[in-house]
């Protein structure tokens, strides 16, 4: 009942390249994927895989809507958008954390509504809801670190990898919300009809991760 090709959405950028290297080691390579060309789709008929590069934040949508059977995206995307997909494996790469950061020395006195700037509105809202803290969430699409410096917000909720950008802007992590890493996700329906090959791929990636 399986389909001819397993469609896999890879996130553009360094993370996607690492993921592809793992897939290639797992025996699911495809010529041309790493070439610097304008080609969008790459197929390997022998192995039965088809790869395409998409914006990292779009991977989950491609998988949820069935345009891709499998995909790789950060846990941050899964927490923020809650796509209805299976999360089959923690690939153990692209590790970072979702954290609350503020100007050095900042203390939340809780005497007024806290202003929080973030790209991750749902994650931030959920975090402060659980903490019982009333907040004003300001949605930004980039340069989040600028918000507390210019007085737009008191704190930020953002991904922190090394913390260098925070340091350079006199900000510091005051709370870690959740650890983030790359996850292998799968469309629910595709899993039913291609389970043999999906489980095979998943097990092969798990074995590589363990090495």
């Amino acid at each position, binding site marked *: 009942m399986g389909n001819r090709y397993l469609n896999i959405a890879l996130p553009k950028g360094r993370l996607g390249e690492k993921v592809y290297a793992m897939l290639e080691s797992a025996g699911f390579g495809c010529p041309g994927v790493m070439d610097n060309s304008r080609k969008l789709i790459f197929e390997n008929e022998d192995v039965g895989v088809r790869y395409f590069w998409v914006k990292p934040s779009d991977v989950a949508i491609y998988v949820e809507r*069935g345009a891709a059977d499998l995909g790789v995206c950060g846990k941050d995307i899964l927490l923020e958008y809650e796509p209805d997909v299976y999360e089959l494996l923690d690939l153990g790469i692209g590790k970072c954390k979702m954290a609350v950061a503020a100007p050095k020395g900042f203390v939340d006195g809780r005497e007024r509504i806290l202003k929080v700037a973030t790209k991750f509105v749902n994650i931030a809202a959920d975090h402060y809801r659980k903490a019982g803290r009333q907040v004003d969430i300001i949605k930004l699409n980039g340069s989040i670190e600028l918000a507390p410096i210019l007085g737009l917000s008191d704190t930020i909720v953002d991904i922190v990898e090394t913390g260098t950008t925070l340091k350079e802007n006199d900000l510091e992590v005051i709370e870690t919300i959740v650890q983030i890493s790359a996850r292998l996700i799968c469309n*629910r329906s595709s899993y039913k009809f291609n389970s043999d090959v999906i489980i095979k791929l998943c097990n092969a990636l798990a074995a590589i991760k363990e090495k």
Partner: protein
Amino acid sequence: MSIPEINPISDRLMSLFAGCGYTQYKMSKFEEYELYAENKAFLPSKSIITFTDTDGRLMALKPDVTLSIVKNFRDGKTEKLYYKESVYRTDSNTAAFAEITQAGIEYIGDVDVISLSEVLTVAQLSLDCVSEQNVLDVSSLALLSALLDKLCPDGETRAKLIHCIEHKNVHEAAFVCNEADVSEENKALLLQIMTLDPDPDKACAVLCSLAVCGGWKAEAENFKKVLSALDKSKLRVDFSVLSDTNYYNGIVFRGYINGVPSAVLSGGQYDMLMRRLKKTSSAVGFAVYLDRLDNFSGQAETPYYDTLVLYGDNTDAKAVCNVIKSSADAKKSVKTAKEPPENVKYGKLLDLR
């Protein structure tokens, strides 16, 4: 007889349900808002379109069919009903209200192993009406609840584990168990259930061999009995199929079609909903989401007419009408047009131009 079907899939489903002894249930587009407000968690979409009726009552455009059927059911008899109705819900992507057509069946009254098997069989046949390439995933909330009770997590941990089970997220389930100090034995049990072989015979053999708690064996045997009557070639046991335990209990299931990215059929036993609506009977049913099949290529069929009548400006109108009448009398289909239409198949061409 070859009258083209307006919606081949829903027509086939209606014939199937009627042919399996279910009677059609027609209902109003509105209900009192109170019914839905009290059972919001049962609804897939929490937003409801409301309006005030002329007598001042707050009414709602029906967001769900089952609630209305259960509300009007009287205990003491068994009813086998089918429906094809529009419901009004918010679209999760656009957040705008949408009209969605659902077709399904409800078996309410004395629900036993045979009636559960029957409903699951009708669910499998419903999927066959759409495509041969289908799968019905079945799970047992009774078994899953018993397992989670044994793990004894607090409310928050339980919610996290349910999320992991629903998303086949084995790595995080293990992490949550470790964080909540769930014993290694119980953690292994949970992971075993999450990674169970979906083959019904193999899955049931494992489930029946476990001794999770007092009532587990009987429940597992009951589950096995229900599944043993079904066509197992397209049946899978999958505990990632979950529904709200405040409403559902026992068996729950989802149907998938190859090429459609999400479940097209969803159902289960919902005795808990019956209790909430003060009914003592049991109930099981399912709905087919016809809107999710709109873009399914298997649905697009070229309409066929027994006769295609072509007429021109000078054609006698009576001649055209006579063909329509005679075709209707003979239970034959007919299409009239000035030019040969595209994407239409026909048996006989009658050119009156």
